[in-house]
């Protein structure tokens, strides 16, 4: 299994959100500003990578009967560590994401990757899997945030960009860049049902693109045969 294949899997062909369809709850709830999206995506990436590495490292001593319990203990540990660190060093992100950081414990992406991948593969492969799957998750979040924020509130980069003192701020006070004048955004998109709508469209586009590329591949193989 090479790095390129794992990367395409994480980002496209086996994307955690758009293809495996796991971890949807938080995706829909927090993808309203770029600040939230990047913060949540990177938190999941870090937690997923740490959990993958640890679970892979101890995979040979994990007894079959209690493996899920052990996964959950390890995941809960890393989530709490990240939660505490965020509260201490990036309090704005911690208050913006609120309960969704502790809820990463029950995010299917992490336990799903533990069960399907890191409990069977080597530490190095699991590390790469964590990074790439985390990147795939972050990309989807960022796309959702960009769409919902632009069409819903009319800005780009809310919370993160265009702060009072610098271009990029970490205290969540950045005003973002206003593209659509205030009051003209489709406010519905920042509401939960706008999240469903955006995610549904993204999934449809993804499925369409995947099918097209598969058809193309099949045609090529046929041509080669003939």
């Amino acid at each position: 299994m090479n790095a390129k294949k794992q990367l395409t899997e994480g980002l496209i062909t086996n994307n955690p959100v758009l293809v495996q369809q796991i971890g949807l709850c938080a995706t829909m709830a927090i993808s309203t500003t770029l600040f939230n999206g990047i913060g949540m995506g990177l938190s999941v990436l870090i937690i997923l990578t740490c959990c993958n590495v640890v679970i892979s490292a101890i995979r040979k001593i994990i007894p079959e009967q209690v493996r899920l319990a052990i996964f959950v203990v390890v995941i809960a540990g890393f989530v709490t560590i990240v939660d505490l660190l965020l509260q201490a060093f990036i309090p704005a992100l911690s208050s913006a994401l609120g309960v969704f950081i502790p809820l990463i414990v029950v995010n299917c992406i992490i336990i799903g990757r533990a069960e399907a991948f890191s409990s069977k593969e080597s530490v190095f492969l699991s590390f790469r899997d964590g990074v790439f799957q985390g990147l795939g998750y972050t990309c989807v979040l960022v796309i959702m945030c960009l769409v919902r924020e632009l069409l819903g509130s009319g800005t780009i980069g809310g919370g993160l960009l265009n702060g009072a003192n610098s271009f990029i701020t970490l205290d969540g006070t950045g005003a973002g860049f206003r593209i659509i004048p205030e009051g003209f955004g489709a406010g519905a998109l920042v509401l939960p049902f706008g999240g469903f709508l955006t995610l549904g469209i993204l999934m449809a586009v993804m499925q369409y693109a995947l099918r097209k590329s598969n058809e193309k591949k099949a045609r090529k193989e046929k041509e080669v045969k003939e």
Partner: protein
Amino acid sequence: MKKTVDFIKPAAILLVVAAVVALVLGGVNMLTEDTIARNNQEKVESAMQAVLPAASYEQLEAPEGIDALYEAAGGGWVVQVTKSGSQGNVTMMVGVDTDLKCTGISITASSETAGLGAIASQQSTAGEAFRSQFVGLASPVAVTKDGGQINALTGATITSRAVSSGVTAALDACANLG
């Protein structure tokens, strides 16, 4: 005999894993505890300075219906109060002067809808405009829809109502101090 071992070994491994995780968590907690407490303290203090500047604040016993009550050194009070908004609780700091008028508000914690109710707590022109409406008002405070004087945020009547009722509760709490 083999059955007992089969039963104990997984449990023992789970115990060891849980113990290691607990130990690590304890360590991280020790490292971050002070910073988190300082962050929260700073947040509360900067909110108090924003609504009613004073050299120091003395915490008084909070009456029913509000979270915390501080007496400012130069006269007046700062009240922390929590009301339920449209998505969750809205916690705010309300400054009250000796004439029992609101001197300013600051929303310290809320989870209102981004782009609608969240404007109430943002450092934006719209947010400042919404919050400045409360300055100088006496109890009761209500949105125009309920016959009051506050122009509710567009699409966020529930948030605006929550803030209004919080300010009313704060003003009333100070009035009852005697």
